[in-house]
């Protein structure tokens, strides 16, 4: 029976080519726009470390004076931590793993004659960074906590930097010059860039895109005089960049890994006690603290750009208009075919059969719209890849969005087909036959 409906539907669609093209084109445009924007939205609001994110937490303290809060509303906790607080929490070792981090633009000078210096993004961090974030090593390994304490001049480099400087060879043990200091390479990472770049948020890095080129022990590079990208002062003085460790300034992010999310209340209690202790010591005026799991932190800091969310909303509105448009055109067609329906009904077709026939017709429009829409979506994503946005290079259609396209196409066309099909199946056969 289905094959017969299919045949009928194709005949009917072929009979009115202009109208069919209009319906398919409109639906395809709506689907194309929706899939393009949803792909970008999904990509940007994704989980950067799916296997780990439930265990990773971002603690916040508030060293700001009561009458001069960090945010205008006074409600938001400071994004970063001072060196003293970050180190106290790091050394307390209350979590399974913990690492502090800052980002810095560093000058790299390739070895040998004629090597032109260039700038790259660097992470200043502590030893737990690599195991905590599951950073995969191609060669070598990260440094240990003793290297942190001894201010070792070691560096872990990203795969892309290893390709650029050493042609992809095992460079462990070799030296690179960073900000005019020599560092020994102890590890090379495989391509690794979790999206969004969750640990770079508020550290003066990019929220999306390529990862950093070099990872260095924080205390070692501070001893060399390198400074972080973002420094915010909460004291009455401007920050003294030479003495960041003692300055009343926040410039470090702290991430902790708990054994499970159930441990979060206990860690928050520990944070609260720490803050109260600091209030008692006179270092803090406020004892409030925050503890976010990775995904809530990204949501709360609205890492996904407003424009991307607006575009997705607008595309959905556009799809809705296209669906209404398809309803109208399908309905017009079905009203015009009242006589044909009358004949079919008189010859014994049930209401259900008529309904099904029209739904099949709508479904075909949907599938065609989906195929064409996929083309539009690819075109749209190609356009986005040529935009100056940080996430441009990431915009690709994955398998799930590919399948989702057809789900959207079928659902929207079947929804569009409901009303016309219902109108068609309630046509009374007698008047139609009489009229002819």
């Amino acid at each position, binding site marked *: 029976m289905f094959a017969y409906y299919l045949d009928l539907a194709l005949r009917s669609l072929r009979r009115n080519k202009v*109208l069919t093209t*209009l319906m398919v084109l*409109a639906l395809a*445009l*709506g689907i194309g*726009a929706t899939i393009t924007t949803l792909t970008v939205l999904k990509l940007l609001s994704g989980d950067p470390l799916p296997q780990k994110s439930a265990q990773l937490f971002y603690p916040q303290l508030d060293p700001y004076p009561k*009458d*001069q809060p960090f945010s*205008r509303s006074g409600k938001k906790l400071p994004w970063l931590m001072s060196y003293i607080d970050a180190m106290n929490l790091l050394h307390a070792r209350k979590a399974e793993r913990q690492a502090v981090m800052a980002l810095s*633009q560093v*000058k790299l*000078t390739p070895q040998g004659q004629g090597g032109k*210096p*260039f*700038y790259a993004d660097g992470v200043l961090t502590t030893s737990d960074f690599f195991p905590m974030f599951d950073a995969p090593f191609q060669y070598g390994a990260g440094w240990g906590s003793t290297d942190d304490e001894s201010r070792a001049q070691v560096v872990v480099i990203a795969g892309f930097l290893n390709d650029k400087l050493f042609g992809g060879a095992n460079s462990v043990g070799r030296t690179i010059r960073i*900000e*005019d200091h020599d560092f020994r390479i102890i590890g090379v990472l495989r391509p690794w860039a979790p999206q969004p770049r969750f640990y770079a948020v508020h550290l003066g890095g990019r929220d999306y895109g390529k990862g950093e080129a070099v990872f260095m022990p924080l205390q070692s590079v501070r001893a060399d005089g390198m400074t972080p990208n973002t420094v915010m002062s909460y004291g*009455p*003085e*401007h*920050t*003294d*960049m030479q003495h960041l460790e003692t300055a009343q300034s926040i410039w470090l992010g702290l991430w902790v890994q708990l054994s499970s999310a159930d441990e979060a209340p206990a860690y928050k209690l520990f944070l609260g006690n720490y803050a109260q202790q600091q209030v008692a010591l006179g270092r803090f005026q406020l004892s409030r603290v925050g503890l976010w799991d990775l995904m809530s932190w990204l949501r709360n800091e609205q890492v996904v750009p*407003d*424009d991307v*969310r*607006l*575009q997705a909303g*607008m*595309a959905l*509105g*556009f799809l*809705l*208009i*296209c669906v*209404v*448009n398809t*309803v*109208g*055109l399908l*309905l*017009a*067609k079905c*009203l*015009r075919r009242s006589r044909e329906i009358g004949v079919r009904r008189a010859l014994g077709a049930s209401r259900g059969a008529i309904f099904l026939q029209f739904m099949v017709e709508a479904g075909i429009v949907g599938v065609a719209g989906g195929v064409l829409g996929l083309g539009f979506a690819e075109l749209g994503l190609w356009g986005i890849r040529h*935009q*100056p*946005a940080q996430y441009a290079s990431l915009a690709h259609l994955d398998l799930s969005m590919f399948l989702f396209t057809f789900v959207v196409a079928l659902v929207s066309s079947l929804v569009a087909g409901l*009303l016309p099909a219902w*109108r068609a199946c309630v046509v009374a056969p007698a008047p139609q036959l009489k*009229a*002819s």
Partner: protein
Amino acid sequence: MEIRPILASLRKHRIPAALIVLEIALACAVLCNAVFMIGQRVASIHWSNAIDEQGIAVITVNGADPKLAASEIPRNLVALRGIAGVTAVAAATSMPLDQNPALSPFVAKPDANTTVNTSVYFIGSDGERAMGLRLLQGRWFNAGEYAGSGFKNFSSTGHVALVTQSDANRLWPGQSALGKTLYSNATGWTVVGVVADVLAQDPKFSGPGGMYSSVFFPLQPDGVMGDYMLRSTPQDRERVVREAVQVLGKLQPGAVVEGKTYAGMRSDYFADSNSMVWMLVLVCVVMLAVTAFGIVGLTSFWVQQRRRQIGIRRAVGATRGHILSYFRTENFLLSTTGTLIGVMLAFGINLYLMEHYEMNRMPWYYLPGSAIALWLLGQLAVFGPARRAAAVPPVVATRSV
């Protein structure tokens, strides 16, 4: 034109009529908000900036040894002045729209607070000419002030500053800013001049309050100055960038030298807004096209269905004009209903966006504006089918079916 027969006919065809109304309402709601967003972004792309945007080339030198700055910067400036067509050269710490905010709060009394973040610019000798600042009151820095002002912990060790007109009005409303003391973290500087409004380093980050809040300090050659500003005619600027990068590349082999025209810097800053504008325009155009074709399609079938009725009307004396205006009036009624609903919907969407996004209230004139646009679109779309309806000959009435 009698409306009653049209209403009677619409009542008989409730569903197609409702669909047209719905489509116009949705299109109107989306159009209103999209055009508003386009307007806001286009306005931001055209933010004024009182420097010589067309004539400046900016060469950034990073990674030079700060200890050698005192001797290297004057040497570099001399070399850059030698480039043909360059009329002024100076070093600076940052540029408007360079996306590298250096912000501080500035107030008129030592113990006052503010939430406005002011962009801080340190300029070297001749900086006002190289940048093309416009002096509104007072004077520029003199040679002694340039030579005697240093940089420590993000603030000036000198005693003088230039403020923008916006800041002068904000800090000393109704008074002249000249001779007043500007404070930040209990340190004070005397305002010697007021310049026309210069944009912040990152106005989107600084917000509406900090957009034109900028302070200029004089600075002797210092390692924090990474930017060289070269002023020339707009025709020369591309060549000036190329030559200056070569000159500085040779003089500072250990540093990273990058050059850009200021116009290029400005378009980089607004690249995001620009692409959002194009994407919104595209969506609007396609959406209007889809709506128009939808109206054409539905009305055409409608006309086809009523060929007999039209024929009868023509046979009993209606002119072509009558038929034409019948369909146009019908579309007018539908469009009006649709846009009324659409305007309310648009207003609701705007309220929602204001709540959840950084969006302003939509000025009222956007609502009638897009209502009229859709109303015109409806009339345009219905014109074809209506003409075909008018062309139905009266003889149709005499044929059975």
